[in-house]
């Protein structure tokens, strides 16, 4: 074994999946994700579930031509919407051309940290949105209501830069969805949600929108907040009663430069890779990762 760094929060359960994990069928391929910037990011957030950073090349940028191949296959399978994430998507030098190609075949969502949204890019994104019959939606991440709360998690100076980015988006008429995680417990409370919506209003967003996500105790977050416990796993029968619809893996797949994964969360797990093309991955998947427990228990969907 050539493993080099001993994990601080070693958890044997991660290495030993339970023998009878429930399997989720792909009900329909509605949402296609792209790890378009790989795991490369201009931030290194302490709660990042896939430990993105400037030096993390676990997954690399996806070139336009590669994205187009999957867009064509997605259209053939009737994909309803496309999501782009990373890393930071706008680090990918072809990102705007990728959006242009995508908006010809369906609605597009971009999950960004907002750091690269300057005036020019905001204007170009507005033009892209206006040029398509389909919606373009931007999600901008923030994890605290003040720099003091946000920056220790997302990085020094990030709060002010996100405030500036949201202002610019509002100025050009793009209404972003602010995405916060429950890394700070108060973020997800009713009061917290109202405060984030108020913050958006002060930035000039007159129809504020918010998405709150739970944290996944993997990647950098396992270091920061602790890893999953052995009991946080799904077993046969857990999911069947509710059906599959609340689990995003029943209707999504994630494409990276290394193939097609089951969902956006498990891209740092080689066993999350289901195949090379979308057609390889229309089969079922076992919910044998502790992160699957979070999706099930919290009813998480990474979708907006």
């Amino acid at each position, binding site marked *: 074994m*050539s*493993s*080099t*760094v001993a*994990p601080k929060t070693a958890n044997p359960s991660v*290495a030993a999946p339970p023998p009878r994990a429930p399997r989720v069928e792909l009900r329909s391929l*509605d949402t296609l994700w792209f790890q378009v910037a790989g*795991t490369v990011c201009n931030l*290194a957030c302490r709660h990042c579930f*896939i*430990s993105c*950073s400037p*030096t*993390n*090349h*676990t997954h690399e940028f996806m070139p336009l031509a590669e994205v187009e191949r999957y867009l064509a296959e*997605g*259209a*053939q*399978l*009737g*994909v*309803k*919407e496309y999501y782009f994430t990373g890393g930071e998507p706008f680090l990918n030098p072809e990102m705007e051309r990728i959006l242009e190609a995508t908006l010809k*075949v*369906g*609605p597009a969502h971009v999950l960004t940290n907002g750091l690269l949204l300057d005036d020019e890019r905001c204007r170009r994104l507005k033009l892209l*949105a206006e040029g398509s*019959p*389909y*919606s*373009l*939606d931007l999600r901008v991440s923030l994890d605290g209501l003040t720099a003091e709360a946000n920056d220790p998690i997302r990085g020094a100076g990030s709060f002010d830069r996100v405030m500036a980015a949201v202002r610019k988006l509002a100025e050009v008429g793009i*209404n972003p969805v602010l995405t916060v995680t429950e890394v700070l417990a108060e973020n997800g409370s*009713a009061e917290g*949600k109202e405060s984030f919506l108020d913050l958006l209003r002060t930035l000039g967003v007159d*129809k504020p*929108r*918010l998405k709150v996500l739970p944290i996944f105790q*993997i*990647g950098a977050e*396992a270091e920061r907040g602790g*890893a999953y416990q052995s009991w946080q796993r799904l077993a046969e029968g857990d999911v069947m009663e509710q059906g599959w*619809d609340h689990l995003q893996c029943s209707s999504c797949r994630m494409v990276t430069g*290394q*193939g*097609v994964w089951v969902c956006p969360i498990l891209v*740092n*797990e*080689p066993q*999350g*890779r*289901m*195949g*090379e*093309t979308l*057609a*390889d991955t*229309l*089969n079922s998947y076992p919910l044998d990762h502790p992160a699957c427990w979070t999706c099930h228990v919290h009813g998480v969907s990474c979708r907006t």
Partner: protein
Amino acid sequence: MGNRPPQDEAERQRLAEERARLAAHRGKATWGEKLVPLGEFRAAVERSGRVLAGEERAAEVASYTAPRGDKVAVEGPYSKVIVFGGVYNNHRALAALLDEAERRGAEAIYCLGDLGGFGPSPNEVRPLLEAGAVRTIQGNYEESLAGGAEDCNCGYADPRDNHFAKLSYGYTAEQTAADFKRWMGQLPCRRRIRVGNKEVLLVHGSPRRINEFLFASTSPDPFLEVLLEQEDCDLLLCTHTGLHWRRTLPSARQVANVGVIGRPANDGTTQVWFAVLEAQTSGEVAIELVPLVYDHLELAAEMRREGLPAEFVETILTGWWTTCLEVLPPRERALSKY
């Protein structure tokens, strides 16, 4: 930077840790909770999943997109039908619609569900449906009311939207007669009709889910093509979103969201919308989306008498939605006042 005070030991250590953290992935990959050499991760990725041969892939795609064999009997054939959805207790608009159907000489009238919610006096709706011999399918409202569910299952996440959805559902659930609820419970979830030489599938949200939203800006052509292929129909008609639109797909198949007659289309006018399907001499079907004017002032007065929220009354009077806005995609939301 020359004026910067010298770093103390704690800060120096913090910066060193931060630098180490930023550089941690040089040549490494995260695998679960471990850092491993990139090559090791990529080799494991190569071994994972299944890679099908060309013909196996084609078979997978063909089986995924193949018609799913709907056994629902086909009603008709018709040359002219009226299709509407989303009554939302608006019995005044429903009465106006029945008059319009008679005036236009429709052979049949179909309702795509969501009889309750939002408006006043739910029990006024049933006698009108019966008088007009309206053939109704179940919406999420009927499913919830008949099943005694605690909410309308509209699928809202925003606390404000849910607050108003609960008020609306609570009122309807309390007021609706028990035998009306039972009647809702036996409604079919889909119908098929023949108009001209085309087969039309009627659903509430989408063919897949009773509460799936089919908005214009988030229902791309390739998606609709596959949906209609799987359902083996020429036309698809739905409601549920409250916003009407129609489209002819590259294959010449057609899709329309017929909108709702229960509340305005969030466009600043008080009219509501329904659809007329008419067979052409060629056998093709023309879909017309039609605005309907009704006595909205009288409806607003009745809503006030019933103690319904002022926000709902405002929508009836102004044509702008005041609640349930979070589900609108960016393009539709941009056209919205709130």
